[in-house]
């Protein structure tokens, strides 16, 4: 593409972010609204606040740049970068998941969901409850019943 077009994204708390169009269209939601001509300028992004939108833009920029660069070696660098990107507190992580879902950015959604899946794997139920602060509202008898229903999973 000869010219680099820029678009402005407006977060839910009123902050504007100017980005290249090629970066913004990593989000299928934004891409569709631009193509349909219903975007408006700046493009409002409800449900996503400025802190999260900034991170999402950072992710998209990095991935668009890596796709342009030479193949092969950069793959490993990108994987390492992604791993660092998701080293955030839970509130941010889950906000990123919701943002990736709303904005329809598959690779970011997969990355964040995989991160949560990795937090679930290999933990006992007690550890899982602790990690995610899930309140156990089963009575001991109910819990026993559930365990029996799904016996093999708990062996």
């Amino acid at each position, binding site marked *: 593409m000869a010219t680099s077009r820029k678009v402005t994204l407006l977060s839910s708390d009123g902050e504007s972010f100017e980005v290249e169009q090629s970066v913004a269209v990593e989000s299928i939601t934004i891409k569709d609204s631009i193509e349909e001509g219903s975007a408006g300028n700046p493009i409002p992004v409800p449900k996503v606040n400025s802190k999260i939108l900034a991170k999402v833009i950072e992710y998209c920029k990095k991935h668009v740049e890596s796709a342009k660069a030479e193949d092969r070696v950069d793959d490993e660098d990108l994987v*390492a970068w992604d791993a660092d990107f998701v080293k955030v507190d839970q509130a941010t992580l889950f906000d990123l*998941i919701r943002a990736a879902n709303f904005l329809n950015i598959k690779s970011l959604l997969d990355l964040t969901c995989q991160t949560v899946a990795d937090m679930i794997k290999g933990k006992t139920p007690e550890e899982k409850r602790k990690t995610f*602060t899930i309140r156990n*509202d089963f009575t001991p008898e109910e819990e026993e019943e559930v365990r029996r229903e799904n016996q*093999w999973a708990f062996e």
Partner: protein
Amino acid sequence: MLLMETEHQSTIPNALPFNSAGNSSEDSVKRARLLSSNQDETQNAVDYISQLPDAIIVHIFSFLTTKDTVKTSVLSKQWRSTWTSSQYMSFSLPPGGSRKSKGFIAFVNSVQSRYTSDKLKRFLFDAPCLALMRSSLDRWLQFAVEHDVEELSVTLNYRRHKIYALPQILFCCKTLVSLHISRCCFGVCGTVNWCSLKILHIEHAKLNDDGLMRVLSGSPVLEFLELKSCVGIKHIMVESKIFRELVIDSHEFRGQASMLKISAPHLLKLRLLGNSRGGEFRLDEVSSLIEAELNFNMKICALDKVKAHADLLKGLLKRLHHVTKLVMGSWCIQVLSLMEARDIFLPSLECRHLILLGAAGHEGVPEAIAKILESTRLLEKLYLQTTCTPNPKIELNAESTGCHIFAGEEFWNFVKWRIYQCLMHLKHVEIVDCGANPLPWEPVISLLKFLLQNALWLDKIVINSPNSKSSQAFEPSPLLEVARILLSHPKCSPRAKVIFRYPFQGCPPV
């Protein structure tokens, strides 16, 4: 792929942790501060995960096995049956687990009977194939087919039992997009109707040409086919314009003078991998190929082994002369060096991007490079990559080796007149060191010095040591020495740069 956002119907748990021991919430916050900032261990004030819409939770489940998914049932009342709507099923029983097989079968049955959705996206199954498993497996596969499964994988392992035959209903599953079968009997009786199938992996199967023909004609949108350790196929013929990539791994040749012929006029990418013996790959019709990988090992029994190996490689390269990206493994490198020693000619190649694997530490690598450079007049990119697996060697009689031992620079000066023209387009050279063993730099340095001195249009030489997985402490000093040598060497291209990339882990000061 936008997931529908429907909020949970059930009540959202309290914002603050409710500690059953009765401690105040202040204490829990204090505890949270003392714990490390790792997101795993921090005591959060909020149960974020339970507030996620169902569709997203199910997407998270798609990254877990069914066993882990079902375990969430005990977390809280809200989570008790969330797992039943996960459209991804993945069951695996490790090989030694035959004692647990009855429980395993009951588990799979239970999961399938409690399934609430109409559709199944993925069904993965990996278990020993015991007698009591067979009829159940038939039923489970039928369940998958009835639920319009898209991605299916069946991997079995056996001790002494008869091989499992896939149910015929599987061959008419119109919703299948990706299928992976390992160690099953691929008995195609009737017609195959896989109208959505794009990806097919068949491993350890006995399949004859007729059976494969039926599979291919029943899969009109097939893009990718991998045949690993299969026996019985002699001819692969695919006319489809959509068929993009073919991978043949460890093909088993039976009988004398056995051959595997490949004709796929629209194929874009071909990979020949693994260990084979006593056979020949013949490429009949591959005119659309843009990328070819020859990373296989072939054991050939012949009186003149060098000629036999050389003939096989020459035959392949003749058919691949138009391919722009070529990847060659250690067998090819060995054969090339033997051909160099015996002055056997290679057909001229239009390759622009050449990758040599297992290259740097290998014997005979300079000879192999000289041989291949002689034929690649359009070469723009040359990558040498060490692999982590040891390279099997071609067994030869003592007399037929005849490799001369050249000291680095002498050798390159000797072959210069032959390969000089091929350096006309060379722009990018890259050495990638996987790091398992320390890289012997000597042969590489001579090559790089030679290229610096003679490649007129050279843009950059990149030396890459992505050592992130190496358990040994990384020693940058050999690299610094290499850097010193290369950077002080005269270069004929004014633009040429030498770039070093390695993970920075507290490098000592230069």
